[in-house]
């Protein structure tokens, strides 16, 4: 029985290591920042995930105590990876991308990196409350105004 768990833990560690290696190789190989961003946000999640699963299994099977820190680590990872990627992408767009020639143009207003939210009076609300339907947006706006302490 022990052997089975040892093999499982070993396999998980190897899977984790392989994916981390591929993610890092992607950083070297891919030609420009935006495509490089794909490597660490994806390949690495499974890399870290494999190592964390291995750790949980190891402690549960051999030290006979359940360790749940690993769940927390993976949860934080899932929360932070997209946000980091988003900020890197925004910074890159801001400095190196021409919005007119290189980006698809959305209907109505431009991309948030180049344009202030269109309702300048309520900067946050423009992004947060504005629905596709103007009546709904108006209603949300009123609801919020009624509730907001300002």
């Amino acid at each position, binding site marked *: 029985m022990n052997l089975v768990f040892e093999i499982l833990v070993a396999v998980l560690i190897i899977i984790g290591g392989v994916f981390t290696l591929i993610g890092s190789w992607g950083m070297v190989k891919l030609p420009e920042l935006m495509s490089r961003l794909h490597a660490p946000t994806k390949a690495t999640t499974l890399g870290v995930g494999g190592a964390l699963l291995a750790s949980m299994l190891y402690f549960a099977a051999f030290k006979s105590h359940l360790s749940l820190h690993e769940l927390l680590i993976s949860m934080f990872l899932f929360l932070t990876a997209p946000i980091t990627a988003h900020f890197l992408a925004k910074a890159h767009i801001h400095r190196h991308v021409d919005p007119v020639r290189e*980006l698809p143009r959305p209907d*109505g207003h431009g991309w948030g990196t180049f344009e202030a939210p269109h309702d300048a009076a309520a900067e946050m609300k423009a992004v947060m409350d*504005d629905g596709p339907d103007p009546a709904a947006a108006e209603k949300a706006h009123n609801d919020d105004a009624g*509730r907001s302490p300002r």
Partner: protein
Amino acid sequence: MSDRATASAADKRGWLPHPLLSASLVLVWLLLQNSLDLGNLLLGLVLGLGIPLWTSGLWPKRLRVKSWVAVLRYSVMVIGDIVLANIDVARLILFRRASELRTRWVSVPLELSSPEAITVLAGTVTMTPGTVSCDLSADGRYLLVHCLDAPDTEQIVREIKTRYEARLKEIFE
């Protein structure tokens, strides 16, 4: 100013403005401590009640989740997709010449309007096959997505909308 805002928001909604946030704070605290001691439980409760009160000025609306079954189904689906995405991207990195990748920007029209739902959608898009969400249009109605390898942009938009957005709509709106 923020103190006053916090106080009046607290007046309006009592001492438990965000029960969900409180519950998850207690849970995260207990997981961080890796124990169920009475002391840790009490400290966790203090944090779980205190932090939402202290920050309630930043959370004007209470998040409503329509169906927890849908949340669970969505999570399982996304975790499965993340594993597939890893294998997919790994294959592209290993076996495709960089010059042959068809990287592309795609603009995805959104039907979701609540900020929480859009945030979850953007996060999901980043974690799943070959796409990273990069920006939101100034009016919050389009999501800018970068694709690592997109022969067919229409199909990517369709997939994001049917696979993720439709389900998030069920959960949040």
